[in-house]
């Protein structure tokens, strides 16, 4: 339904199209889904006083900081893509979105590397770990796993939009909408990074 809002006063006070508004609402509900998981993590952590704090500055925190840097940079290129599309520069848009996807996939690659390291070397799995605090692994893999699913889904979504932009099928609003999603996934990481990593630095 390609239709502008028709408001009583003439222009829409939100000045937002149907698609971005729909994405905003999805972001709100997804934020609640993640919040419930973060609350679960907090609840488990507070109700188990001997919660492990195993992450050493090197390599764990350095590694996750690099991941954070990669994800933040991808948000920057995404913002550039949205701006380029608003200015009608399709090739620039596709290039910026490709960079965004590349950094997103880079994040996933680093993340999976970290996961396998934790599982193989640290003996931390979904159900058990050396400290016999089974919820440590469950919350860690649950939170970062759900986030990783979002990054992967986002990469596919951005690829579809970028392909559509290249073929002239999608417009500035579609790029903006996909950008909203990507920035949200980035924002979620900005909660996970301090709560899961920085608060679990080895003392």
């Amino acid at each position: 339904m390609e239709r502008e809002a028709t408001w009583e006063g003439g222009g829409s006070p939100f000045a937002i199209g149907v698609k971005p508004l729909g994405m905003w609402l999805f972001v709100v509900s997804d934020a609640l889904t993640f919040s419930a998981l973060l609350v679960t993590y907090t609840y488990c952590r507070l109700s188990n006083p001997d919660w492990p704090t195993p992450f050493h500055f090197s390599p764990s925190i350095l590694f996750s900081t690099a991941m954070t840097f990669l994800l933040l940079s991808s948000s920057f290129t995404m913002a550039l893509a949205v701006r380029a599309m608003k200015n009608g520069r399709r090739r620039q848009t596709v290039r910026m979105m490709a960079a965004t996807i590349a950094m997103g996939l880079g994040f996933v690659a680093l993340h999976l590397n970290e996961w396998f390291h934790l599982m193989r070397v640290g003996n931390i799995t979904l159900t058990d770990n050396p400290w016999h605090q089974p919820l440590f692994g469950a919350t860690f893999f649950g939170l970062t796993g759900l986030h990783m699913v979002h990054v992967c889904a986002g990469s596919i979504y951005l690829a579809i939009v970028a392909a559509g932009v290249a073929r002239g099928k999608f417009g500035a609003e579609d790029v903006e909408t996909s950008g909203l999603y990507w920035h949200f996934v980035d924002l979620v990481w900005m909660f996970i990074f301090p709560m899961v990593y920085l608060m679990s630095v080895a003392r």
Partner: protein
Amino acid sequence: MENPTAAKVHAPPGGFLRRYVFSTDHKVIGIQYYLLALFSVFLGMTLSALMRYHLVYPGEKQHLFQLLWPNGAPDGIMTPELYLSLMTMHGTIMVFFVLTTAPQSGFGNYFLPLQIGAPDMAFPVLNMLSFWTTLLSFLVLCSAFFADGGAPLGGWTAYPPLSATGAIAGPGMGTGMDLWIISIALFCVASLMGAINFLTTVLEMRAKGMSLMRMPLTCWGWFVTAVISLFAFAVLLTAGILLLLDRLGGTSFFLPAGLVISDRVLDHSGGSPLLWQHLFWFFGHPEVYIAILPGMGLVSTVLSVFSRKPVFGYKAMAYAMVAIGLLGFLVWGHHMFISGMSPYSAIAFSVLTLAIGVPSAIKTFNWLGTIWGGQLRLTTAMLFALGFVSVFVSGGLTGLFLGQPALDLYFHDTYFVVGHFHMIMGVASIFGIFAATFYWFPKVTGRMMSEPLGKIHFYCTFLGAYAIFIPMHFAGIAGNPRRYADFTQFDFLKDLASVHKFITHAALFTAVIQLLFLWNLFWSWRRGAKARENPWNATTLEWALPSPPPAHNFGINPPLVKRGPYDYSLPQGGKDFLMQHEGEEE
């Protein structure tokens, strides 16, 4: 600003499949949801009839039970496990596939775009997807009946630890419970898609002149309900995924250390069953308002139409719905008073719970104010709307008892609670659905439902509902626990046998009476008297369209809205009302 007349309209869809099955037309999808809810409500009602029968005749052999559940009723007598599985399925089907599906997804889909003058919902394909996901969710739930061990026993709340431990917790707690959780997770996804669609439609698709404060209160009801759905189902989705992880992934989110179930020590530690209660009731309490708010909006409209008076205090009505929606998220703890909660938290939850009485009372008094001194026309729709107000008050007042920690400690898990929530959540919402069915049937089908049949159905259902649920309160005060399959085993419940017999007979009578409604619905669909465009002389936009409305609603000429939704009792020649697009700009 694009010219609204440039809006794309539906091409009349060709082919049976595209038109009636995989349709993106909000009207067809609304009917699909309604029919799903209709099937579900009769299934859920049948389950409750079987349970009520078993409660008062626990020793009598029934070949039907044996035929339907060879394992659950091996010699024709229902086992306690079968009773619990029927109770679980009854609750789940009724709450999700009737009370959530019909008022919001059914009527909301059909009438929200019509009432705000939109050509369709904002995302028609998403709308279709959300219906098919709901249907899939329903099929997954029903498949639990046929799973190894049968349907789950956990009730619609599925409390861990027993719901998180698998088949050792009882028959149906293996595959059946997995299917239950998957079904609920799918339902969450479908509801989230629906909520996004409803909110975007209300915010972006209104016809020119349809300001928020000119929307019919039905649209306010659907709007606030969609906001609640967006928040509540997002959290239930997380809870469901975590419960599934506990069962299939071996995690311990809801499982503490040292659990012994069926003589087996479980190898879990660190989790807490209370965490589930928090997550579940953060969804579960707002769910009550998801069920009732669309009915509140509809009742406001119906009372106004059939009293020929404007809704008393329109703005207060709209704000009261918003307040109820907001407060609904702050009171989940009142379901957990006996969970060992700190008395200070309990007082906070109690005060917030009782505070919901304020907007609820505003609504009730404004309904009375609306019909006060009006020229009442007691059509079936009006009768059900008045019935809604009645059961809303009866069910609401018992909520004041349960909202107090000291009293709840006694009433919790007794039939008092069963009576309370069936009145306020079940009967009130169902009366809203009945009122909506009789009120909008002419618009959907172009024919009128039979009024004499409707009135017989109303009076029998009204008396039946009170006869079933009021005695339950007394049984609860006498200490009768809920969820027990057989009361005859306990001396202290012997005196209540006659009360339960009365309840069962009232329930079976009320259930049979519902066939009258079913007959009325399908007979009138084919044979009812032809309906005019606006048979009730109502003011909202859907009545400006032919009955039934064309596929493209208002086409390329959406109406220009000039006034609020309830302009009745106007002193002028000929007619006593002005529709929203008629007359001079207010």
